[in-house]
Every structure is written in C-alpha cells, then in structure tokens.
C-alpha cells in the first residue's frame, strides 16, 4: 500500500470523494496512489454507467475475460482507511448503490459474474493477473450463470400470539389461568408456584413445536424451489428490525433460474405460500449469490 496518501482522511458523512478526477486520466494510466476497484467479470466489454465516486468505469481484458473496474482514492479504499470507511453506514450505502448500478447494467447486457462489494486491487495490472490466474474458475462461473437469472424468495410467518410467549415481564403471571398445562391435573388451587411451572412447560413446548413446524415448512419450500432451479442457496434469515416488519423470516433463499423457466418458477413460489406463510419473490437480479469467489 503506498504511504504517500495525498488526500485528507474521510470526513464521516462527507458526500464528496476527495479531489475531483481530471477527465483525461480515466482512460490512461491511473493516478499514482489510486487503487483499482473491481465490479464484475464478463466476456465482453460494454459501455456502462459511472462507478463508485461517479468515476467512469473502464475494462481490463485478459485470457478472454473482461473485468469492469474504476479508480478509487487510496485515502478511502486503502486497507487501513477502508476499515474506518466500512463503519460509516452512509458511505457504505452510497458505495453499494454505485456497485449495484454498474453490476446491474453489465448483467442486463451480458452474462456476468459480480464480485463482492469493495473488492480493491493495487492497480489494473493486478486485476489482469487475477484474470489470468483464475481464468478457469471465472469461466466455469460464467458458464454456470449463462442464460440464467437470480431470484430471491423470502417466506414470512406471523409471530405467535404474545400470550404464548415466555418473555420476561409477561405481566399476567399471577392471574390463575385455568391450568394451561396439559397434564397438570386438579389440586393446584392454592399452589401458585406449581401452576406457574406448568404454564411455563406448556408454553415452552408450544414454542418448540411451532419452531419445528416453521423449520420443516422452510425446508419444504427450499427443496421445492431448488428442484426447479439450476441452483439454490439459503442465506441467513434477516433480523425483523431490518425490514421493519414483525413477521418472522422463515426462509431467505436465492435461486438461479433458467430464463425460460421464469414463469414456472414464480408460479411455484406463489403456490408454496398460504396457510399462514407469506411468500415474497424479488428479481431478476444479477447472480450475486452464485458467483462470488474468494479473490485468492
């Protein structure tokens, strides 16, 4: 990493991106100290929108592969400053939007392998070297996603009634409910502690059962969709706080689907919903979930 960083450290929340990049530099050799940001790998060079920091995107060609890259300042994207930058959610959102804009444009036009967000190399030569070294892997990935698009399928279920929950501070613990436990039997009158434990047992069992059912349902949906898709992958279910919904996410799946089977796939996804489970289909997306390679 070069030591002679010429620009100021990133001001948090500052939307500007260091010194403006002169027009004549973008297609020539990059300014010393700039780094090369990699968006995606494809087989052909195509025009595409501006990248991170509104700088033009150029291409690096090697071994029959085309890498889409742009220059980024080392003061934001160097190893050390990047760690700070990544903690700034506004900066991250801005970068992710630019990344997606480029990847999406290329993916619409040609078969594309998107690269993980914020993949940065020292210069174009290093990217060219990467293309050559991992040519087989990239080619395999591109073959796998040719003629296919990624679809996201999320399944939600509504959380059980709060009365069944055993959260702390549940305020009705004293009300002597008519023995919620199954095998509680009679003779608990005047034994509030025993009644309490029986209620707890019933509630824990109910919750365990609900959890098992939810897991089975999610497995079933995922298996059915994967059978129709060329590939399927499950991501970690998102925290309800992210989406602002109270519903529990059962399934957060990504599926690589032949373009000719799109209608069949979405119809199947709809059919798997109902009965307390809501299905949300998104897409088509660039095949993010099926092309990310570790840039080893």
């Amino acid at each position, binding site marked *: 990493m070069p030591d002679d960083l010429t620009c100021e450290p990133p*001001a*948090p*929340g*500052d939307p500007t991106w260091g010194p403006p990049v002169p027009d004549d530099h973008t297609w020539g050799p990059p300014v010393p100290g700039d780094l090369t940001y990699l968006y995606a790998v494809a087989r052909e060079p195509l025009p595409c929108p501006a990248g991170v920091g509104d700088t033009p995107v150029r291409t690096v060609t090697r071994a029959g592969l085309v890498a889409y890259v742009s220059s980024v300042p080392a003061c934001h994207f160097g190893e050390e400053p990047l760690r*700070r930058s990544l*903690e*700034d*959610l*506004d*900066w991250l959102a801005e970068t992710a939007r630019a990344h997606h804009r480029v990847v999406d444009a290329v993916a619409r036009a040609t078969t594309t392998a998107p690269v993980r967000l914020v993949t940065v190399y020292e210069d174009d030569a290093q990217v060219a070297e990467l293309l050559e070294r991992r040519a087989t892997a990239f080619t395999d990935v591109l073959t796998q996603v040719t003629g296919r698009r990624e679809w996201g399928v999320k399944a939600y279920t509504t*959380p*059980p009634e709060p009365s069944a*929950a*055993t*959260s*702390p*501070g*549940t*305020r009705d*613990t*004293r009300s002597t409910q008519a023995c919620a436990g199954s095998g509680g039997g009679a003779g608990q009158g005047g*034994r*509030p*502690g*025993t*009644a*309490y*434990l029986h209620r*707890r*047992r019933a509630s*824990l069992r109910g*919750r365990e059962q609900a959890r098992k059912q939810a897991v089975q349902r999610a497995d079933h949906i995922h298996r059915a969709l994967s059978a129709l898709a060329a590939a399927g992958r499950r991501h*970690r279910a998102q*925290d309800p706080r992210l989406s602002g919904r109270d519903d*529990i996410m059962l399934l957060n799946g990504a599926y690589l689907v032949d373009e000719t089977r799109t209608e069949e796939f979405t119809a199947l996804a709809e059919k798997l919903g109902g009965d307390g489970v809501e299905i949300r289909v998104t897409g088509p997306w660039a095949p993010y979930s099926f092309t990310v390679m570790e840039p080893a």
Partner: protein
Amino acid sequence: MEVPPPPRWRLSTDPDTVERDLTRLVLTLVELVRQLVERQCVRRMEQGNLTDEQIEVLGVTLMRLEEAMGDLCDRFDLTPDQLNLDLGPLGTLLPTQ
C-alpha cells in the same frame, strides 16, 4: 465549525447512556440465567424427580424473579425485547419470541 455526527456503528461513550447500556447488559445476563434455571426446573419436573413441595417452592421463586425482572425493566425504562444480544451468525442470546 460543526462537529460531524459520529459514524453509525460506533459506540458513543456518553456518560448518560453508558449507565443505562451497562444496566441493560447486566439485566440481559441475569435474564439469561433466570431462563436457564427455569428450563432446568421444568425438565426436572417432567422427569418426576422433584417432590410436590419442591416444585411449589421453585415455582414461586421463579415467579417472583420474573416479577422482579419486570420491575427492574420498568425502573430503567427498558422493554423485555431490549434485553438481548445479537450474536451475529449465532442468532440472539435469548429466544426472541
């Protein structure tokens, strides 16, 4: 010159909030232990190796502990949902529902 707001995801060690956050952390750990003990009691009750008298004493104790937790939450203006830790890929420390 205006001081820019700190980036999100940074902890701010404001003395006003730090006390409340520390309380929250302590209460979360107490609640974890309470729930573990409660589950253990239910398990032993199911196995039938507790006398009726023991079950009653344990039940009353756990019930009072739960009430005490509720009172503490009220005093520090916390809701039960806030007594939890996100452990990333492991999920949350306490069951969420």
